[in-house]
Each structure stands twice: as structure tokens, then as C-alpha cells.
């Protein structure tokens, strides 16, 4: 049984038909990436999975359970965490308060210290700045904080939306290394990315989205060799 199963979802904004029947699966332990151009519906897919949007049709199964009707704030209790597009850190809260919010869903408060240490080992920069107001962090640090915050809830599935957006290439690589590391520790990752080269380099499998539909799905290796993908998303002629 796949960990996440998205079955033919249709999502609308008012009368705008944004997702026209997306079907995808994520197996436990995988990194799966969704690539596509601006406006292809990647973020909408993630927002629908995380229950911030409701599909008009279709359903989402997580570990066999239908999660498309539970409220958004229950998702994290199911084991699904998301790093939203634009990082979505709480700018007026301090770094450590942001991390506290990541652990909001945790009942086992005595283990929090350990998790905090783990995040600080992943991102030593955050430790230095733990009492700083998050809004004053640099873009890269904010992205680290966002991922670290999501990890605080011990998710089994991590949804990542455009982690590379607006970051310098060096930072992008660092971020993707971290994503790979997190995956190694046992967290399944569904990654939405415009930077297809990077995404495909860490992912096991990938889906290509175009105007709300999946046009291609294959292993990451095959996708990076695919002519169409190369042309459209990898900048090769």
C-alpha cells in the first residue's frame, strides 16, 4: 500500500478549474517530486493534499485512510507536515517560538529537547539565532527555520513547496542536501520544485504537471533523460 494516494482530484478556485484530475502516489521512504512551470498547479496540489483547499471531486488517502475531509489543523496529527510556499514562518515570533509552534501538535513534551537538538544539528545557524525575531533572518535562514519547524512535529510525510525559491545557488544545494538527509532518517518527502535539475537529483521519482494535469511520470533518472523534460524544465536544447 502506498503511503500517500491521490485519486483523481479536481480543485477549483471559484469557477476556475485549477486541478483537472490529478492522480499520484508516494511510497514510504521515497522522495517524490512534482515539477512543472509557473502556474501548472503544483502548489494547488500540495494545498489540496494538506487540506488547505478542498477538492470538489476525488480523494486523498494517507496510509489507507481518507484524509480529504478532515480539517487542515488535524493533518499534522496524522503525520503530514508541510513547508508552505514562501516559507510561511511567523515573522514576529522568535526562532525558538517558531520551532515551538512546529511542535504544537506534540503530546510528548519531554522529548522535545532532543528534537530541538536534532534541528540545531541540521541547521547550526538557527541555534545561534534562537532568540532573534524570525522576520529578521535572511532568506536562507528562514527556509532552514521552516524546514526545521516542520521536522519538530515528527512527520512521516513532509510536503515541501519550492524550498529553493529566491535562494542563492550555494544555499539551494545545502537545502537539498538537508532534504536528502531528512529522508535518510526515515521521513518520506513530496517535493514541489521549479528548479527541476536539483529536484530530480535528489528524488526517486517525479511527476510533470502541466495546466492542472499530470502529463508524465517516471523515475527521476528517466525523467532527467526525457527530451521533453530537458527542453522545457532543465534548460537544455
Amino acid at each position, binding site marked *: 500500500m502506498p503511503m500517500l494516494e491521490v485519486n483523481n482530484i479536481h480543485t477549483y478556485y471559484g469557477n476556475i478549474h485549477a486541478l483537472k484530475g490529478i492522480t499520484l502516489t508516494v511510497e514510504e521512504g521515497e522522495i517524490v517530486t512534482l515539477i512543472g512551470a509557473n502556474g501548472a498547479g503544483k502548489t494547488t496540489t500540495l494545498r489540496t493534499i494538506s487540506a488547505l483547499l478542498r477538492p470538489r471531486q476525488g480523494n486523498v488517502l494517507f496510509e489507507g485512510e481518507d484524509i480529504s475531509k478532515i*480539517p487542515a*489543523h488535524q493533518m*499534522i496529527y496524522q503525520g503530514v507536515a*508541510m513547508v*508552505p510556499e514562501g516559507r*510561511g514562518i*511567523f515573522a514576529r515570533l522568535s526562532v525558538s517560538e517558531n520551532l515551538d*509552534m512546529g511542535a504544537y501538535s506534540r503530546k510528548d513534551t519531554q522529548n522535545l529537547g532532543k528534537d530541538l537538538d536534532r534541528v540545531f544539528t541540521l541547521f547550526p545557524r538557527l541555534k545561534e539565532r534562537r532568540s532573534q525575531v524570525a*522576520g529578521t533572518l535572511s532568506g536562507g535562514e528562514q527556509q532552514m527555520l521552516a524546514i526545521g519547524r516542520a521536522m519538530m512535529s515528527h512527520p512521516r510525510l513532509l510536503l515541501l513547496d519550492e524550498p529553493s525559491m529566491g535562494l542563492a545557488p550555494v544555499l539551494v544545494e545545502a537545502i537539498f542536501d538537508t532534504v536528502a538527509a531528512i529522508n535518510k532518517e526515515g521521513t518520506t518527502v513530496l517535493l514541489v520544485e521549479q528548479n527541476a535539475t536539483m529536484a530530480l537529483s535528489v528524488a526517486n521519482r517525479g511527476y510533470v504537471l502541466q495546466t492542472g494535469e499530470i502529463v508524465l511520470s517516471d523515475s527521476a533518472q528517466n525523467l532527467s533523460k526525457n527530451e521533453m523534460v530537458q527542453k522545457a524544465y532543465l534548460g537544455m536544447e
Partner: protein
Amino acid sequence: MQRRLQNINYLDFVLWFIRVSIIVFVAWGTIATLLDNPYSADVWVNFTVLGLAQGSMYALIAIGYTLVYGVLFMINFAHGEFFMSGIMTATVFIAGPLSASGYLNNHPVISLLLILVVSMITSVGVAILTERVAYRPLRKAPRLVPLITALGASTFLQYTFRGLFGSEVKPFPQVEALSGKISFLGTEILQTQMVVIIATVIMLVGLYLFVMRTKTGKAIRAVAEDKDVAALMGIDVDRTIAITFALGASMAGAAGVLYALVFRQVHFYMGFLPGLKAFTAAVLGGIGSIPGAAVGGLFLGIFESVGPPLFLDGLNVPAYHQLKDVITFTLLVLVLIFRPQGIVGERLAEKKA
């Protein structure tokens, strides 16, 4: 935003003109008053303490506006009615009977606690009910719509309580343990005023700590910043918003008790004006900020009390206390023109305002 219009000199000229003319006017009035010297130093201290006590109440009510504004970006016009509902109910059901039986003055502490609890619970109940019925279904409506339901809720609550308890002024019994004066800074002030100021400080500090330190407090701040992301963290946004309303209303309920202690009468319309003033105070301090509400409230109280005699007495304005609100609102306009984020507000709030 300031920069955006910088190239237009005419506007700057007008604003400068307003600033200068008001400052000249205020300076002129102040100097004339001081030369005339109608009041002794004691009286001035007195004015300040009076303002402080009144300002404390504004501050407590303003907290509710600021909290709700922080999470919903909505002016909750019904907040003054939360304030009224608590103390009206407590007066009719608790304070009146307790005083009639003599229990109030024999056991003032227990009685006051009972009054406080009933007042706060009623305010909170009314607030939660209002939020559930009138605001929650409209969370995604255009911004002016909840404003209108808030206005509707305000009228509705006023007249509901009028219908329940009658339209007349209800006396609130004098608590003998709190009557009399004590000496403070070389002047005599009323014990009740002292109680108000101390109680306000305690509650404001308590609230501040709650919002800054507790998990729920942090959740409120998270919801204020981004509801979607807060939901992703596992925070029940609707519940948190209801808690925010409850917090603000509990402060208003407590403010109601303090009001009753000082002024010793309640009325179904008593929430309207303090509500308006408290909202002004919240904006003055910087809406969305808790210290802002406190500072704005105190500032407003002191200005109302000290402003009219200081600025207007020397100018021979007849019945100048009538113009106290003119001073208040002029102050507000000045602050907002030259410091749009309020006295202690952060610029962050502006983009959402």
C-alpha cells in the same frame, strides 16, 4: 507608503502647515494657561491621577480590540457591549442582592471576587456567542461585511440587555472597604482609583505573559500572522480565534467591575462610549500591539483629563471640558498623520491595515 507620495510637495506643505498650526495653538494655549496659573501643582497632579485611572479602564477595554484586530483585522464594534454585559449582569444578579443583604460590606473580598467572576464569565460567554453566530460564518467575506455585523451585534446586545434589565440607571453599591482616600505623591487620591490602577497593571502584565509565554498565547500570535500556516502546525484556528475573543472579553468584564467600583452605576448604554474611546486608544497605541493598547489607553486617559485645562483654559474657551473629545481626536489625527503605526506599533501591521 510615506515615500510613495513624497514627490508631491503640496501635500507635505499642507501637513506641515497643520502640524505647525496645531503646535502653535497648543503652545499658545499652554503658555497662556501657565501664565494665568489657575491651578496649583496639586491640582495638576490630581488631573494626572484621574486620567491615569480612567486611562487604565480604556487600556483594559482596548486590549480586546487589539487582540481581535490582530487575529481577524476586524474592528469589533461590539466589544463595548461585552464590557457592558458582564457588569450589568453582575450588578443585577450579584452586587444588588449581596448589598441588600449586607453581605457585601461584611465580606468585601469574597463578594468582589464573586462579582468579578460573574462579570468576566458573562462577558466571555457573550463574546463567544457573538463570535460564533455573527463573525465566524463571515471569515471569508469582504472585510467590510464583518464590520457591519459587528455594528449590528452591538445594537442587538445593547437592546437585549436593556430588555432584560430595564432602561434605567442601576446603582452599584458602594464598597465601604474601598471608600476613602489615601495619600499618594503628595496628593490625596481615592482608594478606588488606586485599586483600578493596580488591578489594571496586574491584569495587563498577566495577559502579556499569557500571550508571550504560554502555548495558547503563542498560537494566538501565530494565527494572527498566518492562519493557513498556523493550521498546518496543528493549531485549530477557529478555536484559537474564539479564545482570543474570550481573552479580550475577560479583560472587558474585569474593566466593567473596575468601572462599577469607581462610578457606582451601570446602564445598558454604558459600553458605547468607552468602547469607542478604547478603540481610539488601541489605534493611538498601534492597533494589534498589546503594549500599544496599554500605552494608548493611559495616554488617552491622561490627555482627556489634563488636555482641556492645559490647552484651552488660557484661551478663555467657555465650557472647555465639552471639547475634551475634540482634543482626543485631534491628537489621534496628529499621531496617525505623523506616525501611522501608532505610538508603539510596528510598521508590520500597516500593510494589513
